[in-house]
Structures are given as C-alpha cells and as structure tokens.
C-alpha cells in the first residue's frame, strides 16, 4: 500500500531542474580555474544569459523558456497525482519552474527564524568555562508557521506551496539516489533532514536543490559509516537527473563537465557543513515507535508497518524541524490506528509512553495527513 503523491506540472515539458549545476557562469572559459569560493559568491541569478553560449548542451527545455519565467504562471497547474507504484519510483520527474531572482543572495543576510529551544541543557560546569560556538548545543525546533514565514526562499518570491513542491522533489531524488547506491533507509532519511535544515537557512533560489541533495547524501553516508565513492555518487546522480546512461552524458556536455560537477559537489558539501554548523546528528522516530508499540504487545501487527511507512513518508515534510522523534512516532501511530479503525486509547498510558500531548498528536497527524 503506497501513500505517495508526486507533484508534477500538467501540460508542461518537464526538465530536471538541474540547470544551475552547470550554469553558464562556469563555462565562460573552460580553461579557467575556478576558485573554490566561487560557489559561495556566485550570482544568485542562475538563469544567466551566459547559458546561450552553449546552445544544445543546456537545452533542457522543449518549451519556450519564457513560459517558465515566473512561478505564478505555473502555480495553478501544480496538481496532486496519485501513484500506486513503490515509494518514489524512478519514473519521478523533477520539475522546477525557473524564476527571476534578485542578484543578492538572500542567504547571506538571512538572520534565521526565531526558534524555540527544547529544554535547558546547560551544566554548571560549562558555565564556568570559556564559550565555544558549539557550547550548550541543544536541538532547536521551530513551529510550522516560523518555518513557512521565515524561509529565506520567501524573499526570492517562492511561496510556501512551491517550496513544499521543491522539498518533495529533492526528497524523491534522494530516495532514488539512495536506493541505487544501496544505502540504508535511515541514511537516506538523515540526508533528507539535512537538506530541510539547509533550506530553512538558505534560499532555494540561490542553491540548486539536487546539487545540495547529492552532497548531503554523500556527506551523510560518510558520517554514518556507509561511505560511497564520490565518483559513484556523481555518476548515479547524473543518470537520475538526465535519465540517460552515464556513458552518453559525456557526449552532451563539455569535456571537463564531470570534473566541474565533482568540484561543485565538494563545494556544496562544505557549504552544507558551514550552514548547518556541522550539526549532522539526526534522531529518527523509528526507535521510539517500535519500542513503545513493542512494549504494548503490538510489535507484529499491521499497525507497526503502516506507522513505519507513515514515518518514512513524513520525511518529505518539515516535521523533523518541528518535533522530537517520539512526537513524530506518536503522530504516526495515531494516524495509522485511525486508518485501520483501531482504538489505541484502549492501550492504557500509550500517549504517556510516547511522552506526547493531544495537541502535539493532532498537529503531527494532521501534517502527515496532508502528505496524502
């Protein structure tokens, strides 16, 4: 049973949304050695006129480019589609309507949303010592409203609905890439959450989400002891984005495209690390979910499988930025029970076991519902 909905544009020529990874700025002179800082300081206007220099190399759009110049033109055509195929199947298209942007990278002046911190973790010992930029780090959660209102993408004209669509598309891409690289689901999930954290701090308009996603998965695999060779990651990523065998791509692009792509991913890796301040730890709801349901004797039931699937689906949302793992677990269990017409209230203290409240339960399950 799949609960996946894939967002696509109707009656449009779809493209990979991968334009900015090989944007014209980088091909003005193929012999030019780009400085490593180029990625950070690059003009935000990724649809630069330089692209015309390369004609067919970058002719990703079958339709007139002008049709996509503003997101408003296509917003109404974004429509939910139901798929019964397995989660994030490979036929998934990654569509982004190009946008006109200001030239100022909003990421550099974005101060970040107000945050709500979870519990005071400071210790008396640490107060006596000099401050460190990592001192008293505790998980910081934001409300959905804060995420929606303060996203840096807003300043670049990307509304909530469109940003949600962008989030779904890079999650679909990550799921596909992770599965092809034979990475475990928790690593794929962690990469998704790192991307969510990244785009809460930096605008979609200034950063190619597929480049960031590729770097995030490469990074996560390393930090979680399942490293994949960068060349494998790059090859697989290119094949997904261009829906072509890697061998054929060499004929489509300039001679050094792969080397440049490698550089861009390595730069993106560093950008992710600095943007997230090296916060790579992600707690997933799988453990609290299974352990609580196990405690209640529900470990071998359809409920567990459905709840786990809901958690995996939830990775597309911003829930991981809003709630603790056990709260997401509770919401998934609650919603799964609802789908199955089960009354979990019959199991005494179940919500206390999840350390949750009715309002949190309602909020999480409501947001999970919205995914379908």
């Amino acid at each position: 049973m799949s609960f996946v909905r894939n967002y696509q544009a109707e009656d449009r020529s779809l493209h990979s949304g991968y334009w900015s990874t090989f944007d014209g700025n980088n091909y003005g002179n193929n012999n030019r050695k780009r400085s490593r800082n180029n990625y950070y300081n690059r003009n935000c206007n990724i649809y630069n006129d330089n692209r015309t220099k390369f004609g067919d190399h970058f002719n990703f759009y079958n339709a007139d480019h002008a049709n996509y110049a503003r997101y408003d033109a296509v917003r109404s055509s974004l429509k939910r589609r139901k798929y019964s195929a397995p989660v994030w199947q490979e036929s998934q298209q990654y569509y982004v309507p190009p946008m006109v942007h200001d030239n100022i990278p909003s990421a550099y002046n974005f101060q970040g949303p107000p945050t709500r911190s979870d519990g005071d973790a400071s210790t008396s010992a640490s107060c006596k010592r000099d401050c460190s930029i990592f001192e008293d780090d505790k998980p910081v959660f934001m409300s959905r409203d804060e995420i929606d209102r303060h996203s840096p993408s807003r300043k670049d004209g990307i509304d909530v609905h469109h940003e949600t669509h962008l989030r779904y598309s890079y999650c679909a891409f990550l799921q596909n890439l992770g599965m092809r690289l034979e990475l475990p689901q928790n690593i794929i999930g962690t990469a998704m959450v790192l991307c969510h954290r990244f785009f809460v701090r930096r605008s979609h308009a200034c950063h190619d989400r597929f480049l960031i996603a590729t770097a995030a998965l490469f990074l996560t695999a390393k930090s979680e002891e399942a490293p994949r060779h960068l060349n494998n990651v790059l090859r697989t990523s290119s094949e997904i984005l261009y829906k072509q065998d890697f061998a054929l791509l060499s004929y489509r692009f300039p001679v050094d495209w792969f080397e440049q792509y490698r550089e861009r991913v390595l730069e993106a890796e560093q950008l992710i690390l600095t943007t997230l301040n090296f916060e790579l730890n992600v707690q997933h709801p799988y453990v609290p979910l299974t352990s609580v349901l196990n405690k209640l004797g529900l470990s071998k039931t359809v409920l567990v499988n459905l709840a786990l699937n809901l958690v995996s689906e939830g990775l597309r949302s911003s829930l991981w930025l809003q709630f603790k793992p056990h709260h997401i677990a509770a919401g998934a269990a609650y919603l799964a029970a609802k789908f199955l017409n089960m009354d979990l209230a019959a199991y005494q203290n179940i919500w206390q076991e999840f350390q949750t409240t009715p309002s949190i339960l309602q909020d999480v399950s409501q947001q999970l519902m919205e995914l379908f």
Partner: protein
Amino acid sequence: MEMEKTGAGVAVLSAKEAFEKLEKVGEGTYGKVYRAREKATGKIVALKKTRLHEDQEGVPPTTLREVSILRMLSRDPHVVRLMDVKQGQNKEGKTVLYLVFEYMDTDLKKFIRSFRQTGQSIPPQTIKSLMYQLCKGIAFCHGHGILHRDLKPHNLLMDRKTMMLKIADLGLARAFTVPIKKYTHEILTLWYRAPEVLLGATHYSMAVDIWSVGCIFAELVTKQALFAGDSELQQLLHIFRLLGTPNEEVWPGVSKLKDWHEYPQWNPKSLSTAVPGLDELGLDLLSQMLEYEPSKRISAKKAMEHAYFNDLDKGHL
C-alpha cells in the same frame, strides 16, 4: 586581508588571520596538530588541521564524526572542548579545515611515561582521581549514545597543574542506537581492544569502551600496558594467559564469534599478579571492567558508584 562570509552575513577571519601557529605538537591520520595563539585574545589553543582532498573524497569521515559528536559532547568538563571550526588554505591553495580545541599541556601516555622514567609510582589518589574523571567522561558519552571506540592513554588529555583529564580524539567514535547495529571491527589500538572485537564480533556496545578503561586503569598502576600484543592473535593470547581461555560457560556465544578458533587452554590467574600495586577495592572494580561477557561488564555509570571511589573528594571533579 581575506575574510570568509558566514551564512548570516558576518565576516569572520580565516584560520591564518585568526591564529599564530607556535609549534607542531602531533600528527594524526588526516593532518597535523599545532599549539597556536588566538591573535584576538592571546589565548593558547590546539589547532587540528584536516586536509580535505587527500583522497578526493571530500571531508574525511573521521572529521565529520568528530565534529558532529563533539558538538553534542563538548559541554562536559571531561570531554575536550571544540571551540570553533575554521577554514583555511594550504600552500597549494587547497582548502583545509582547522578544528580549534582548548589546549591541554600533556596526555596520559606522556604522564605515565614521565613516572616510568623517574621510577616513581603514580600516587594512588591521583590514579583514583584520573579513573573517576575517565569514568565520568565515558558515562557522559554513553549517556548521549556515543561509543568512543579508541580509548587509549594517548587520547586522554591532561592539565598537569589541575590534574584535570579530558577525553579527546573522537574520530572513531560513533552514535549507537538500540538494538546495536553491526559495526566495523577494524577499530581501536590493539592493546586496549576488547576480546569481542578481536574475535570479530560485529554487534557491540558500550562494553568495548569499558574494557579499554580497565586496561588504562591497570596501566596507571603498573606504568606498563596490561596486554601488549603485536598482532590480533598475540593480543588475544595475552588476554587469555591472564584471564583464562574463555568458553561457553564463562561467555555464552563466544565459540560462535566469527574469528573464534581452538586456542591453548589457560586457567585464570588472580589480577593481583598482573597489577600488584592495586588495593582490594581497585582489583574488584578492575575485574568487573575486564569481564569477558560484554553484557556483564560494569557500566561507566555503575563504575562511578563503586566503593573504590568512596574516599575520593568528588567536589571539584
């Protein structure tokens, strides 16, 4: 003057501008460690330089793990404090990462060596204090779901004046979740490696760190490594000679471990023969740290509550 831009638009000094290197104090897998002075404050720090593109695979996994784990653990007074991460460039123009740590003037390996060279014993109360701090630091790591996996005297930093001990070098550390996953057993310096790791166990937990703590405890008393093997087999044989060759009775499941073979049969000896200077309570604690069966090995938290530490003034620790 080159400056880097942060996400919030604040210009920050690069490593080169912010610090003055004073001397090289060590070398790790991925780069050198320097004693340096922060120009703005005059504060002495340790700079751990990481080469990013040695193997064309970006930021090394050890650096990623070390930084992300230290972000969680740096609050504890017994874990070395990561103060900052700076980017810089080397002579070839390649990007390098500098981890900025608080500076500690020695480590436990050097500390033990200094006593060995003078022929003096480390005072029992000093051993007790250092062991308590080590257990406290490890308990903090384990409480946050982190295994160190490479505990050895060289990775335990010290301040000579205050006798403060701090756990360092978390490059091999990792977060664990329950149930314990399969982990690589290509970890840990041989001398401090737990028998389950030597025998190829891929499911292991906090107990691997406790074994290392036990080995360090004995070394503090005798000033010699307890089990100094030069290969995995020799390491196992050293352990078996002292603690007896394990069997299904003392360690259920041992014969099913990947690298289990038929080994020479030794009977267990008394720990006091190997660690003669240690009192009865100390020997009791040590024996619980060196239990064969990982699930029976004492936890760091329980070790802190052991009677061996009863007469220790824990107020300042």
